[in-house]
């Protein structure tokens, strides 16, 4: 059902069939990092403003890893290591489907098959939500979808698709996010785009 705001005189729909297109109340681009001609080991977003309610990361990533079609990467927040991260996920690759988890990791480790490679010839896509990123009373919840496909298998690895969630176990406001490739560096055109979402 569409909703009309009397106060603001705005008409908003939702995603249900027959409604007008849904337009988020606020979805703003904060910053984007795109890898240039020289591959790099990490991608970092710093000085994230605390003026939003939620964050979304939209990523398009590849590593220069030989032999294998699949790479791996990690995410850390505010430079924190220790045992500050936990995760749960489900993943499908080839004919395998399984779950994975961790409770006290030094980084948020995306699924073992989370990154495309230049050997496989494709990039991985990720959409990651970080909810209530500036709330000082909550650990921060991370959730997302990830996938990579390269028309079968390369070096014994098949494409993979993941649904995952996790936590950064700190009440600190998130002000920086860093992605690090585990095998090889991020290649040219790899991109991490950060968006902010406000609530009314």
């Amino acid at each position, binding site marked *: 059902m569409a909703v009309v705001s009397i106060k603001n005189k705005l008409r908003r729909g939702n*995603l*249900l*069939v*027959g409604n*007008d*297109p*849904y*337009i*988020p109340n*606020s*979805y*703003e*681009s*904060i*910053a*984007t990092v795109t890898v240039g001609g020289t591959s790099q080991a990490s991608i970092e977003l710093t000085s994230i403003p605390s003026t939003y309610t939620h964050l979304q990361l*939209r990523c*398009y990533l590849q590593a220069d890893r030989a032999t294998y079609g699949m790479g791996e990467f990690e995410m850390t927040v505010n430079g924190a290591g220790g045992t500050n991260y936990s995760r749960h996920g*489900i*993943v*499908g*690759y*080839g*004919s*395998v*489907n399984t779950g994975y988890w961790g409770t006290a990791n030094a980084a948020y480790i995306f699924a073992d098959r989370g990154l*495309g490679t230049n050997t496989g*010839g*494709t*990039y*991985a*896509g*990720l*959409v990651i939500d970080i909810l209530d990123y500036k709330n000082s009373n909550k650990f921060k919840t991370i959730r997302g*979808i*990830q*996938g*990579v*496909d*390269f*028309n*079968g298998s390369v070096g014994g690895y*098949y*494409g*993979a*698709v*993941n*649904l995952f969630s996790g936590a950064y176990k700190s009440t600190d406001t998130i002000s920086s996010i860093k992605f690090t490739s585990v095998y090889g560096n991020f290649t040219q*055109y790899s*991109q991490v*785009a950060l*968006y*902010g979402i406000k609530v009314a």
Partner: protein
Amino acid sequence: MPNTYEPIATTTVTTASPAVTFSNIPGTYTDLILVVSVRANSTPTSFGTGIRFNGDTGTNYSRTVFYGSGSSAVAFSDTNQTRFFVSSGPTAASTFNLIRLNIMNYSNSVKYKMVLARNDDISDVTSISAASWRSNNAITSITITPFDDNSTGFATGSSFTIYGIKAA
């Protein structure tokens, strides 16, 4: 900062339709999101939705899929397909299939295209999939086609909306 999540076009089927095409998609965004709510015009024993980019009917599509149906979870991959087959279902009366596609970096002209999809059909299956279209061409059109054993097209009320997201 300006809002960067914008509707580009939307179509709602008013009479049974064999396909829906969005053409002349502007190259001014970073990612596209396609939201589809569909069902077949009849009640077939099988139904699915396929996606093609730029009218390409070659064997340039592949996908990796993970789905749950009933008490089963299944993963598989398809190679050298002639379209990105997103989903199966629904076949139950009055149910619609909700599909949400993230089409990443769609306008670049140097890389293969990557799609993340989620499909929700309450009558049959929930799935996530990753797909690639092995083309370096920018995506300028998207065609959504039904596949059902009665060949009766998309039902009235099926809707299709495409959004653009622009990175800073």
